[in-house]
């Protein structure tokens, strides 16, 4: 039932060429990325696997406009992110990327609806906060505050918040890292459904190799470069995953 997407027909949302990132930690230079080339296509769901310190988070930060590479090119639909100013990066995050964090990072003083609204209020063509929450199955929890929601529910609010702006790219950093497996699957279901229904290109960073099977494409990271980039023949539904 899940067709393998035909990559040749899809346009590239992100193009990354020869990206390196060197941090300076005191006297020591840390090479977080050592020449990464990557194209992310519209609508594809990518899982990025790799051990801690392999550079996957650095790549995610660069994709999300939180960090700039030391060298190389990063293009989002033709716009160069490397040369972008701080203000341009802020606008890029505001309009083009949705973030889902490991620890949800909801605003405790705002209800679920308001946590989404704080982003839709400043976005260009957002969906209504209620619709976004509806999509993650929280249509009946609109006026609950974070303290009144379970971890999984909080993470689904975070997903609604990330997608309500209709981003080009959804970046998820260990979205199930703080959840038990049953709850984690519910969250992954939400991500999968969003990706399927809205066609938002989605990158999920995880330690958890089990999650890889729900992806269109699985990229393995080690020592600051891509060691493998494979396409799954079949994309599994999250509830079919073994954890």
């Amino acid at each position, binding site marked *: 039932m899940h067709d393998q997407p035909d990559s040749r027909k899809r346009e590239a949302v992100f193009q990354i060429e020869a990206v390196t990132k060197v941090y300076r930690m005191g006297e020591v230079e840390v090479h977080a990325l050592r020449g990464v080339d990557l194209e992310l296509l519209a609508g594809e769901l990518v899982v990025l696997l790799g051990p801690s310190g392999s550079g996957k*988070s650095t790549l995610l*930060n660069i994709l*999300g406009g*939180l*960090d700039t590479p030391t060298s190389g090119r990063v293009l989002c639909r033709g716009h160069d992110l490397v040369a972008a100013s701080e*203000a341009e990066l*802020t*606008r890029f*995050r*505001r*309009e083009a*990327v949705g*973030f889902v*964090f*490991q*620890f949800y*990072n909801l*605003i*405790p*003083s*705002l*209800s679920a609806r*308001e946590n989404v*609204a*704080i*982003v839709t*209020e*400043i*976005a260009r063509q957002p969906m209504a906060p209620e619709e976004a929450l509806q999509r993650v199955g929280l249509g009946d929890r609109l006026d609950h*505050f*974070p*303290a009144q929601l379970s971890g999984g529910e909080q993470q689904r609010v975070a997903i609604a*918040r990330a997608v309500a*702006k209709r981003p080009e790219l959804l970046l998820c*950093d260990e979205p199930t890292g*703080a959840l038990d497996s049953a709850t984690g699957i519910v969250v992954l279901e939400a991500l999968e459904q969003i990706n399927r229904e809205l066609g938002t290109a989605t990158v999920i960073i995880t330690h958890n190799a089990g999650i890889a099977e729900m992806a269109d494409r699985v990229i393995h990271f080690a020592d600051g470069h891509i060691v493998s980039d494979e396409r799954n023949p079949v994309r599994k539904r999250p509830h079919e995953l073994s954890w």
Partner: protein
Amino acid sequence: MLWRELWHMRGQVLAIAVVIAGGVATLVMSLISYAALDSTRDAFYRDHRFADLFVELTRAPESLRLRLEAIPGVQHVESRVLGGANLDVAGFDDPATAILLSLPDGRNSELNRLHLLNGRLPEPGRDHEVVAYDSFAEAHALQPGDRLGAVINGRQRTLEIVGIALSPEFIYHVRPGDLFPDFERHGVLWLNRSALAAAQEMEGAFNSAALTLRRGAREREVIDEIDRLLAPYGGHGAISRDDQLSHRYLELELEQLHSLAVLFPAIFLAVSAFLLNVVFSRLITTQREQIALLKAFGYSHLAVAGLYLRMVVVIVALGSLLGSLFGLWLGSLLAELYRTFFRFPAMEFGLPPQVLLIGVAVALAAGLSGAALALRRAATLPPAEAMRPEAPPNFRPTVVERLGLQRHFSQPTRMILRNIERRPLKALLTVLGIAMACGILTVGRFQDGAISHLITVQFGLSQRADLTVTFSEPRPGRVLHELEAIDGVWLAEPTRAALVTLYNGHRSYRTVVEAIPAQSRLHRLLDDQLLAVEPPDEGLLLNDFLATTLGAGPGDTITLRFMEGRRDEVAVVVAGVIREYTGAAAYTTVAQLNRWLREEMTLSGAMLAVEDGHHDAVVAQLKELPAIAGVTDRHSAIRSFYDSMVEIMLTFAFFSTLLAGSIAFGVVYNSARIALTERARELASLRVLGLTRGEVGYILIGELALLTVLAIPVGFLVGVGLIALIVAGIESDLYRVPLIIEPSVFVFAGLLILVASALSALIVLRRVRHLDLVEVLKTRE
């Protein structure tokens, strides 16, 4: 760990220490200058045998001195001759007057001894030799050897200054009836008793006496006995030190210092207690895990609390040290200011160790009470619970939003409102802290406007004479025509003043009844709306202070007893109450007072209106007239007062601005800094989600901005309250400062608070730039 933690939050530590320092500094400053002034005065009184009682009379034979001394309770009596002179100082055209007091021939007096600063006392038989009071000599740069022209009892004399001295009787010296000292136009001269007695026709007699009392003497009974004894000799009624003018001013000054020593430190230390509470609550929240770890390692609750306690103590110690040094410096400045103002030969300035102890103890008490709740939380936190991060805080829509206004607020505004509502006490204390700063600013600025108002009302609306003439003794009415005849005088109005005691039931008050003409143009009496009130043909108008003191109001009948002339008693009706900011006088018409005194048209002085450009010529002519005891030029008195006040007011305004600024900065900076640590993660998350720095800054600072804006009107109320307290505290029969606050005072205070808040907010906002966006993806709080 202690020092590392403190260094880590050095900005906040410093901000709190500065506020504590403000409290300790004002406390130390007030206490040491109070102690210095108090002990200097006591020492000066003791060394120069300042008398306990004073009495003036028309004339009594010298033999009466022994009868005064025989009154039980009286230790020593010194009789003297008191007179007045119009002076002619070379190079000074304005009218100047002096009190003349006798010294035993060739000797210093027994009581109220002179403190010679320069030169010597008059030698026996040298009738023209005088000792001049220091302030007067200084105002005219007079030295021993200089000469003065003087009209004494109508006769022109030339006096030679042989000495310059101070006296405990004239530490603060104003001409009777004046509000402010005017050293150029009024002085005190001492000369040999025989010389002054000859000039005043007082040989073998006296018209003034100073007395000391034995320990345990009953002052009231002695005074009654003196008054009874002196009644046939025109006694004006004995007064105790408490009613002696110079002593009263000093007392008032000491009282003000004392209230300063309580009020300002209290405000500062309350604010610092609040700041310590806020900062330590936050610190303990962020260090839950560390606390848990220490406890898991076996540290006792007490040991953990002790760790934070030591931090509080270090901050308080830092503030106390800064404050003590600053207070010591301020106190020495203030003591020196008092020394020159009151002309003490030397200031007994010391640092009583108990002052520092009080300062540190009070600061420590404030610090500990502020931090107590936070410390208790640290001590009682169970280790297992401390290991877990704190549960997400509970929020709900605010009252304002539930009223249906929600749709008008953006999400950031809702965050601001909900944050305030969730911690209402903290918000309230923040508002109060900023309001205190705002209040202190209004206090620092109000005097200028209030005193301008006082002068405008008292010397602009009410007393309008250009020159006021006082006769050495009551004169017949025709003298007025002589004054009117002076070229340049376009209006002369008579005045008649009489020393009286007023009685209402058990209350009594010694004062003067001042009589002015009906429909006077040169002295208008004003009601509380500042509308003119005519002096009544029958009855008496009391000024507001006198009415309150006597507990008498319009329609009441009070008893008036004259302290001069035939000493009659009359029952009079209070016709009304007028507003006056100076003195405690009663008013009637000249005709009425003449009737009460059973005299023909008689005046004791006159008010003159002088044509422009004729002032100097009129003064010159007045100096030639006999029997004129003094000429007061109100305009120059006001000018000289302003000159001397400007510096004091500016200094006070400067310091209060500095102190209030430090409070405002301390409160706003600390609140903003804590808000930043508390919400760094939230704010960074919002930055990641695409909110701009400005939008995030709004969320961070909006809460404080709102609280600051709320605090300003509260601060105005605090200011009005403090000013009312101060005004009530310095209210006396000498003067009352009106509770008038110029709008500009509020504008200034409000603006300064906004600026101080904005500056401290900016310092914190700069940190928003450095929020670590990457870190928030990783960590949980």
